């Protein structure tokens, strides 16, 4: 050979090309190659690399870091803490110190991490469909054509954005802003204007409430304050002993929501009937001597059916009996008049200043500036020069009568910044990708006004600008990064002027980002009282609204989806696959109808129905929901997207916005239904809601519980057995779940999916019964009463799955976990057959191929499972072992409450408690010792480590005589 003999580091191919090969040499090289392969040598790369020697002090590869930031939805911020592995955010948890979270999160908040890694994210700035660049767009934004500038963006509470908009208004006179929120709270603020003369914000303090009345208000599930309110409510709902008296909840609503499912007395009524009920409630309070304003004559003519009147009277009595410790909450869908009456009701029962406080609105310009209708009219009249649509989708999420798409096309310059290319992109010249909140700097206010910071955990994956940076470009501040833009206005606010100003600011800035929010910035309570008399505008509204309806046709109650909200999360596969709280429906919405209506119209589940409202029609599959009001049908918004660039969202479900009237009101008063002959197969995870007398989800009334506290006796305690009871030493892990405070919100389901790399199977997979969720919420309905029962691996001490596995792939650990050894599983699925709880999941296909950017979300501490392997809840064993390792390094024992499972951490109410049986002072252990604790399928002898607390209801004796079943 003419060159030196090949070193082990040189790739064999290089050698072969360099050298003139003769037969003997070839054989030598071949032999060397085989020797190399045998020695297990890796091909060293051709260039030199150096190991990571000078690392940052806080960064240890393999150990995650946590950063505080905030999630903002429809303008309200919730503080979260995000886990980051090697610079890659993987998991979202609530910020335990933030007032809007207190550690809990909603399903949407948990799922938002997946949107960061969505493979369908917009990546490229485009002008008229051709690739361009952010630099060119910024240039264009700095040099707008003549004509007014209109901004369309979601409601904002950000001081930074408010400052930028003010600057834009200065630089561009005639600027109008449309705060676009299809599920917005305009009616609530207008109601406050009726009552107080100003758009005040309602702050609930449910820790002081004995009676709560929800008027079409899903305050525990979908409302903007739900995460915090659910925690406070649960604190008053959970019983430690039979002598405790839980808060009593009344609800009136058409469709069963998490709030309604927990209500002690739920009135199923169409949404348009809530205002008459509120009016009647106010007048009943007046009749009982409470201070109420004089009501117009139309209020007296409100004739409620006797059953409703009885309900209203009982509620009035109860509110008065607990004056100062009661609260009435009105849902955002209700008209302003109802919100206004709610304020007078709260004033009448002494709630104001106690359980209900009023503060300045968290949102900037809560009553809005311009509306979408104004935008459409101005665009058609040629009175808009530039329209910048940022982080919202008005072409999709608006009444069809406004014809937003045509309106935008008429505008000379349109810019659309969006996370994914959507319906609005089609109508706009410029389409720019938008940074995800985990990639962006910013600030916002929580519902109570607390200033919350948004800090990025990762550089924008596609170099996308954030909303703040785009607004800055419009304000003439091009070239400044989001961080610089945020720091500037906060300098004077965080530090006092003086010699050590810079150091003081840096310290304060670091502390603020570390906490994620500024403590003490909650808006102060205002000593507001409603006016003594109803304002004329309100009286006019009441006259119109309370007049008897022209016909008593069905009402269509449109609602935000607990999964995709107003459609902005439609491309999030986790949320699409999340079984909805009452219907367990996935990958679609449906027309939700009462069983009686379904029988009357002969609708089977999935029958396609034509809904007609005026000249607007829509075809939707029907689904019967026990407990839905007759006289009303519900359809969730956010589906029926026409977005070919979002394959997960495209064509899934039906578009409820098509039925929205020009006023954008979610309550559509009169619709006609006609069944077509077609049937669509709905993908639902739970098909049977009846427990067939098997006593699986126990519930009791408070008085029965007090009379017989041990009523769950048959479902707990030792069982006779021929088999020896295994003795185990050391920490023994277990879980207790209180079904009294489980609202069915399903945040735990998404949290588990995020933590444990649980794959998505798609609509067809769910239809076939192959949903992969390790944790599911079982619902059992008895006489329209619902109990939500989170069902996960029970980690049975005598696990039936363990003895049937032929290869020891599932075994029992010394600390009580039922272990799953993925590498050993051959996939016989006998364990699934033998699990009576049916909590085991099988990988029917390789759900992780083809690999997309979504794989970046995977938790590196948890195996990604192969095809053909069983999987199930592990009690978050990675967190248990992580805590044990940490404890061992610090030479101490694992502390009580140190290990928190993903589901426990996400739960807004704290219904799920995990811990060690030896830690007697933890809620997990104390709850199991309550007399109402029980095990599911106890008599099978599986000895599950997960125990449940029976759901205790607190019915009002005055209303209770026909409901002997809780």
């Amino acid at each position: 050979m003419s060159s030196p003999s090949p070193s082990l580091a040189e790739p064999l191919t290089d050698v072969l090309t360099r050298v003139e090969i003769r037969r003997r040499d070839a054989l030598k090289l071949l032999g060397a190659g085989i020797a190399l392969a045998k020695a297990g040598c890796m091909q060293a790369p051709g260039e030199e690399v150096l190991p990571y020697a000078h690392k940052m002090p806080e960064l240890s590869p393999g150990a995650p870091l946590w950063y505080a930031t905030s999630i903002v939805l429809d303008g309200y911020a919730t503080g979260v803490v995000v886990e980051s592995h090697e610079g890659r955010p993987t998991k979202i948890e609530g910020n335990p110190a933030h007032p809007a979270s207190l550690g809990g999160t909603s399903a949407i908040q948990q799922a938002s991490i997946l949107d960061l890694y969505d493979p369908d994210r917009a990546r490229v700035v485009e002008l008229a469909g051709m690739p361009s660049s952010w630099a060119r767009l910024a240039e264009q934004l700095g040099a707008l054509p003549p004509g007014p500038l209109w901004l369309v963006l979601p409601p904002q509470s950000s001081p930074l954005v408010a400052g930028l908009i003010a600057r834009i208004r200065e630089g561009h006179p005639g600027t109008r802003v449309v705060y676009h929120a299809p599920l917005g709270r305009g009616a609530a603020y207008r109601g406050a204007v009726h009552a107080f003369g100003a758009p005040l914000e309602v702050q609930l303090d449910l820790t002081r409430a004995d009676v709560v009345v929800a008027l079409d208000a899903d305050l525990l599930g979908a409302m903007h304050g739900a995460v915090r309110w659910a925690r406070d409510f649960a604190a008053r709902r959970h019983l430690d002993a039979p002598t405790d008296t839980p808060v009593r909840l009344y609800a009136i609503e058409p469709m069963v929501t998490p709030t309604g499912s927990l209500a002690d007395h739920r009135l199923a009524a169409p949404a348009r009937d809530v205002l008459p009920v509120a009016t009647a409630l106010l007048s009943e309070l007046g009749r009982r001597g409470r201070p109420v304003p004089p009501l117009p004559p139309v209020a007296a003519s409100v004739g409620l059916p006797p059953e409703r009147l009885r309900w209203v009277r009982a509620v009035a009595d109860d509110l008065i009996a607990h004056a100062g410790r009661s609260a009435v909450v009105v849902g955002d869908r209700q008209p302003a008049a109802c919100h206004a009456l709610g304020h007078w009701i709260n004033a009448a029962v002494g709630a104001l200043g106690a359980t209900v406080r009023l503060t300045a609105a968290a949102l900037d310009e809560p009553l809005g500036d311009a509306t979408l209708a104004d935008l459409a009219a101005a665009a058609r009249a040629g009175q808009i020069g530039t329209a910048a649509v940022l982080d919202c989708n008005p072409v999709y999420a608006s009444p069809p009568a406004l014809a937003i798409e045509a309106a935008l096309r008429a505008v000379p310059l349109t810019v659309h910044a969006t996370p994914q290319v959507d319906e609005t992109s089609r109508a706009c010249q410029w389409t720019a990708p938008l940074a995800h909140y985990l990639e962006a700097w910013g600030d916002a206010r929580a519902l109570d006004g607390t200033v919350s910071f948004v800090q990025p955990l990762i550089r924008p994956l596609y170099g996308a600008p954030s909303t703040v940076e785009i607004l800055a470009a419009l304000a003439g501040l091009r070239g400044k990064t989001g961080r610089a833009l945020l720091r500037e206005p906060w300098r004077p606010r965080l530090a006092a002027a003086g010699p050590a100003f810079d150091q003081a600011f840096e310290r304060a800035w670091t502390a603020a980002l570390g906490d994620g929010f500024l403590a003490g910035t909650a808006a102060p309570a205002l000593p507001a009282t409603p006016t003594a008399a109803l304002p004329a505008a309100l009286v006019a509204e009441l006259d119109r609204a309370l007049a008897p309806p022209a016909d008593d046709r069905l009402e269509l109650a449109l609602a935000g989806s607990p999964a995709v909200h107003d459609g902005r999360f439609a491309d999030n596969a986790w949320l699409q696959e999340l079984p909805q709280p009452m219907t367990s429906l996935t990958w679609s919405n449906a027309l939700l109808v009462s069983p009686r209506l379904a029988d009357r119209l002969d609708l089977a589940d999935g029958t396609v129905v034509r809904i007609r409202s005026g000249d607007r029609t829509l075809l939707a599959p029907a689904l019967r929901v026990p407990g839905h009001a007759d006289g009303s049908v519900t359809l969730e918004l956010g589906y029926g997207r026409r977005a070919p660039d979002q394959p997960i969202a495209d064509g899934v479900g039906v578009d409820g916005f098509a039925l929205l009237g020009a006023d954008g009101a979610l309550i559509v008063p009169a619709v006609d239904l006609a069944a077509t002959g077609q049937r669509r197969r709905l993908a639902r995870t739970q098909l049977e809601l009846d427990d067939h007398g098997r006593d699986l989800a126990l519930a009791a009334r408070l008085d029965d519980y007090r009379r017989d506290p041990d009523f769950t006796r048959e479902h707990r305690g030792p069982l006779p057995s021929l088999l020896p009871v295994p003795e185990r030493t050391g920490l023994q892990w277990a879980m207790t779940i209180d079904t009294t405070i489980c609202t069915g919100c399903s945040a735990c389901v998404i949290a588990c999916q995020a933590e444990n790399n649980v794959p998505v199977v798609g609509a067809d997979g769910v239809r076939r019964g192959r949903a992969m969720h390790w944790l599911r919420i079982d619902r059992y309905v008895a006489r329209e009463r619902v109990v939500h029962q989170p069902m996960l691996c029970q980690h049975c001490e005598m696990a039936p799955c363990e003895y049937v596995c032929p290869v020891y792939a599932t075994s029992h650990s010394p600390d009580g976990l039922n272990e799953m050894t993925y590498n050993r599983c051959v996939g016989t699925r006998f364990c699934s057959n033998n699990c009576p709880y049916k909590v085991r999941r099988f990988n029917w296909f390789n759900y992780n191929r083809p690999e997309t950017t979504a794989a970046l979300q995977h938790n590196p501490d948890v195996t990604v499972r192969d095809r053909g392997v069983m999987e199930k809840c592990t009690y978050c064993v990675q967190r248990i072992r992580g805590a044990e390792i940490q404890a061992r390094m610090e030479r101490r024992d694992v502390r009580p409450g140190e290990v928190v499972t993903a589901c426990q951490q996400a739960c807004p109410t704290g219904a799920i408690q995990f811990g060690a049986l030896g830690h007697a002072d933890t809620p997990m252990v104390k709850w199991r010792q309550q007399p109402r604790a029980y095990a599911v399928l106890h008599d099978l002898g599986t000895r599950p480590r997960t125990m449940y607390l029976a759901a205790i209801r607190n019915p009002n004796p005055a209303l209770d005589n026909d409901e002997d079943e809780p």
Partner: protein
Amino acid sequence: MTPTAAADPILVGAPTPGELQDQLLATTWGQGGRGWRIAFAIAGALTLLLFGCIAYTVATGIGVWGNNVPVAWAFGIINFVWWIGIGHAGTFISAILYLLEQRWRTSINRFAEAMTLFAVIQAGLFPLLHLGRPWFAYWLFPYPSVMGVWPQVRSALPWDAAAITTYFTVSLLFWFLGLVPDLATLRDHAPTRRRRILYGLLALGWRGSATAWRHYRAAYLILAGIATPLVVSVHSIVSSDFAIGLTPGWHSTIFPPFFVAGAIYSGFAMVLTLVIPTRAAFRLKNVITVRHLELCACLLLVTGLLVAYGYTVEYFIAWYSGDEAERYQFFHGRPFGPGSFVFWAMLACNILTPQLFWSRRLRRNVRVLFVASILINVGMWAERFVIIVQSLQREYLPSGWRGYAPTWVDLSILAGTLGFFSLLFLTFLRLLPFVAVAEMKELRAELAHEDAAHRGPA
């Protein structure tokens, strides 16, 4: 020999040994008729379909089947149990009837034993194929692995692995042993040199000496003795795949005897299904007589009644236990839940059909026997569907209740195994003497001897 037996013989006529041999070996020497070729082509096509679907399943995942949670076992295990059950009749005929000295077994025992072997091959595909990771199937066998882990023997699945392997091995040995003298005969009368070498290799040098026959007898008896308990044990173990579980509808102590009875039941039905056309096509009605068919029918009646007893006991115990899940399973889920048409088909096919055989005329009617045997096998397949799929559809937690529907892959694999079985069987019919020549000659001699003795000195 009684006059009645003479009127209903198991060997018609009094052929000479030469005639008998020629008739029985003619099946091997003859060309395949058109019917055989068509049947072979169809079987071949189905076999290709089977292997295509197997490759598809292994490459893509069990998701191409209709299984789900809770119905994690469906067609794969139904087919497995069905085929294994069918095999039991062969061993029953070869071994148990041999030990009980039932001479009517002689003409059908090799045929039936081959049926067993081919049925076990079909069955054996499924414990491998239904695995999520079939390339690790060998972990169910006890071998000294570097992982230091042995199979978990409290589970019935390693028992299955052992049982099926044992069953196949013993059946193969038994069948082959019986073939050896006939292979030697084929070697000695082979028309071509190639065939002579082929049969000669297989005949293992058999020369037919008295010593050889003595060893042969002893070996045959021993293997029959080993095979006999397999008839009971193999399907008992297969039934324990279900009986050790706690699923309502599975957790039943009657399963082992109930399954064994059902296995012999379906096996004899399959024997009839195969033997009726074969004896007609190959003109062997004198060797496989109506008496044989009648005796099979009698056994069908007996085992059918045992199966009916099994159903009755299950229902009684489900009711008597008072367990809500069991009662729901038997009184609501199976008769009125999803798939209930299969349940009613099962009852009709399994309980009603064998009642025909109370009538002597009907159990000697070849057409009736053929149709009934097919219905019985359909009924037995339906029984496994009811036990496996319907039980899993309605378990303890109603939140997990869900139906099941097979996919085209499931149906293709089932049809494919029927095709593969037929392929093997048709090949066997052509290549090897499917009636045991040597044993038939022995039987002929015994019958002639008895005949002469009966007639007495002339």
